[in-house]
């Protein structure tokens, strides 16, 4: 029987494994009794002659698992397991559940959570001998080895980012593929100005913790600046109240950057409702009343995407969308004039600002993508080979690219 600390955890689990019991039992003696009314045992049948000395496969029904805390000496019953289960992950109680967390943590350290495990098999005829494991200590690790690939990948990506940023600083002519949707932002703002109608900008419906929202707000910074230059009214309805002050600050500073802080109206960036469809109703109503010439939908969207864009279409707006929600992209593509697909949304702020640092980072991401595509092709090939050929050296790759 084996009990070992679970690797790469916070230190509250032990893996317990036991070998399946497969014994043959020999029956020498079998008699059947029955109690009569005066509670005396009467022998009904003696089967000893028929089956004595015969061997029979033992039919294990259950395992009973116990543990002993070597710190406190307390013995505990853990559980009864079906016969086909031969492992268990034991977990101690979290110290967080104790009232005083600090006290609980100290107690946990003092108690030395070292355990010894005992197992016993149960068959219809008997309880097997108790097997005990070596003591195992619950230890927390200071580095998660399962995430080593993630660490390496992150280091590669960071390194490439720094390299291209340095290169972009010295060499201003880095080429990145133009995106149709972004080129149109200028035209779309200009169109609204010509028509004398406002612009609507929706930075998604998600919270600020969503990268798509931040990407949307980055684009808002560029759009707000252009709107301020042309003196076109801008509406930014919001669903998340944490995003509200951030969006207000962005639009305000965009106006002051082009030298028209007085033109900024605080009520143009406003909160509608945290409820998804109440928000949609609010924005659709806004489109019907204010008749914006251009709509921007940049960020995270869910089922409301089509309602928003189709309403905009009905009002005859030019619509530019960008989202990383792959389930909503088909709706955007069918109803909007231009759509930024997936990561194009993240790249947008580099295009708008033309900041060499940001342009360099796009280049770095492209290189990283190439690297990942290479890894996928290589990994697929090697693991397929390892499956087809039973060549032991290839097993290493199976291990390197585990299928989960």
């Amino acid at each position: 029987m084996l009990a070992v600390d679970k690797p790469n955890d916070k230190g509250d689990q032990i893996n317990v494994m036991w070998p399946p019991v497969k014994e043959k039992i020999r029956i020498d003696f079998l008699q059947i009794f029955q109690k009569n009314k005066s509670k005396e045992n009467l022998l009904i049948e003696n089967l000893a002659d028929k089956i004595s000395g015969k061997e029979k496969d033992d039919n294990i029904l259950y395992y009973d698992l116990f543990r002993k805390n070597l710190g406190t000496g307390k013995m505990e019953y853990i559980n009864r397991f079906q016969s086909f289960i031969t492992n268990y992950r034991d977990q101690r109680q979290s110290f967080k559940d104790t009232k005083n967390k600090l006290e609980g943590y100290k107690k946990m350290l003092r108690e030395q959570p070292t355990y010894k495990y005992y197992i016993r098999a149960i068959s219809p005829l008997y309880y097997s001998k108790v097997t005990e494991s070596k003591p195992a200590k619950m230890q927390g690790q200071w580095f998660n080895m399962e995430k080593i690939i993630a660490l390496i990948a992150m280091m590669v990506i960071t390194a490439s980012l720094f390299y291209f940023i340095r290169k972009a600083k010295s060499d201003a002519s880095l080429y990145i593929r133009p995106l149709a949707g972004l080129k149109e932002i200028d035209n779309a703002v200009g169109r609204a100005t010509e028509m004398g109608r406002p612009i609507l900008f929706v930075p998604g419906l998600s919270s600020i913790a969503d990268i798509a929202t931040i990407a949307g707000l980055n684009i808002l910074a560029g759009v707000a600046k252009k709107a301020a230059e042309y003196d076109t009214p801008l509406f930014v309805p919001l669903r998340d109240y944490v995003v509200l002050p951030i969006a207000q600050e962005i639009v305000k500073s965009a106006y002051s950057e082009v030298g028209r802080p007085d033109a900024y109206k605080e009520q143009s960036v406003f909160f509608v409702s945290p409820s998804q469809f109440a928000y949609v109703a609010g924005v659709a109503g806004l489109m019907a009343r204010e008749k914006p010439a251009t709509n921007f939908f940049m960020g995270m969207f869910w089922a409301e995407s089509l309602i928003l864009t189709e309403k905009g279409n009905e009002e005859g707006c030019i619509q530019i969308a960008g989202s990383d929600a792959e389930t909503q992209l088909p709706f955007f593509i069918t109803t909007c004039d231009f759509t930024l697909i997936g990561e194009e949304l993240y790249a947008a702020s580099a295009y708008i600002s033309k900041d060499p640092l940001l342009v360099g980072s796009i280049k770095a991401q492209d290189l990283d993508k190439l690297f990942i595509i290479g890894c996928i092709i290589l990994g697929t090939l090697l693991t397929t080979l390892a499956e087809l050929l039973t060549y032991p050296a290839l097993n290493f790759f199976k291990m390197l690219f585990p299928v989960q």
Partner: protein
Amino acid sequence: MKSFYERIMHIDRRIIYAIIMIVVLIPLIWSLNLKTYHTEPITKIYNRLEQNHKNAKKNGVKPKPVFMCVTYGGSAKPELHPMTRSVLRHCYLRGIPVISFAFEPEAAKIAEDIMDEVAFEYGAVYGKDYACFGFKYPPLPLILGLGTNAKEALKEDVRGNKYEDIPVMHGIRTYDDIDLLFDFSASASWMTWVVYAKSRFNQDIAVGLTGVMVSQAYPYLETGQLVGILTGLKGAAEYEDYLMKMEKETEYSSMREKNLKVYLTLTQANITPTSKNYVDIAERLLRNTPEGEFEKKLKDYYDIAQNLYYKKYFAKELSARESKAKNDAEKKSLLNDILSQNQDKVKELDYLFLKDFKKKYNDLLATSISENKRAMVGMDAQAIAHVVIILFILIGNIGFFLSKWR
């Protein structure tokens, strides 16, 4: 004057809306009864629960319980509610215990309501056949906690009962003690179940998703990480079809209709409702319960409901006395004290309770017949809508080609 092809290329959207509305409404009024074809992801789930029932019957034990995680709000309710209802019906019919919880407060209320509603219809008893643990947050500690110690993770149900006091929870320590886990989800929570509950604890999972999300889940079905998927309204319709057949086979639905008739004749004949009559009606309703246990089960159910009724009525007095009570034993006897002091009122209440109970029963039976076919009717409407949209697309294309040809 616009030419013909221009007109069919640019049909006014209001005309399209009106036609769609009409064709969707028709199947809701007149049932079309289109044939339902069964697909693998749903059949797998149905068979799994049936297998659970058969195994239990063979070994003479209670079926293994299922967990049910409900993660949808009002907006996805029309699509996900019928499948939740179907799975609950199946479980209650086969005596499979159901334990639910939710990761959103809105969903917790929805789950509680539907469980109580279907339980009433199928005669399941709270605490014995199902339990509801309500809103649990954050999700991850619960998902991991269920793998190591369910009691610690769930703690207390929505009615304030402790885990150890709920009979249905007895013997449930970890995922090992349950059969299947359902996640009805309008968000990505089902992925969290797959990543943690399946890969860490090897818990079998079935999910119910909205139509647009289904394509994301298919690869997990192929790899066996999911037992099955209830694929939007279509999946729910298939499940309803299975249940309808099953109820017919077990003569459940015909019994229920008969119950309704018996009940109606009773009320029309103006027979004073006595507990004996009530038992008669309910006996047929609860005919799935093993023999001998029935009287006890019914009494429990009736008592619990009646007790709640009393408690609600005397709530003010009860809370006033409760604050004065010294210990727990005294608190428990409070209700009985109040009842014995107000004998006349209790008689009146008993009568009112029975009346209310019957009214609720009547309403439920009448609506449940349509509720139980909700997804199938919905699919009829969807099928017609698909055909009409395809027709519109074809008309638009004909116009487009005519304009090109000219």
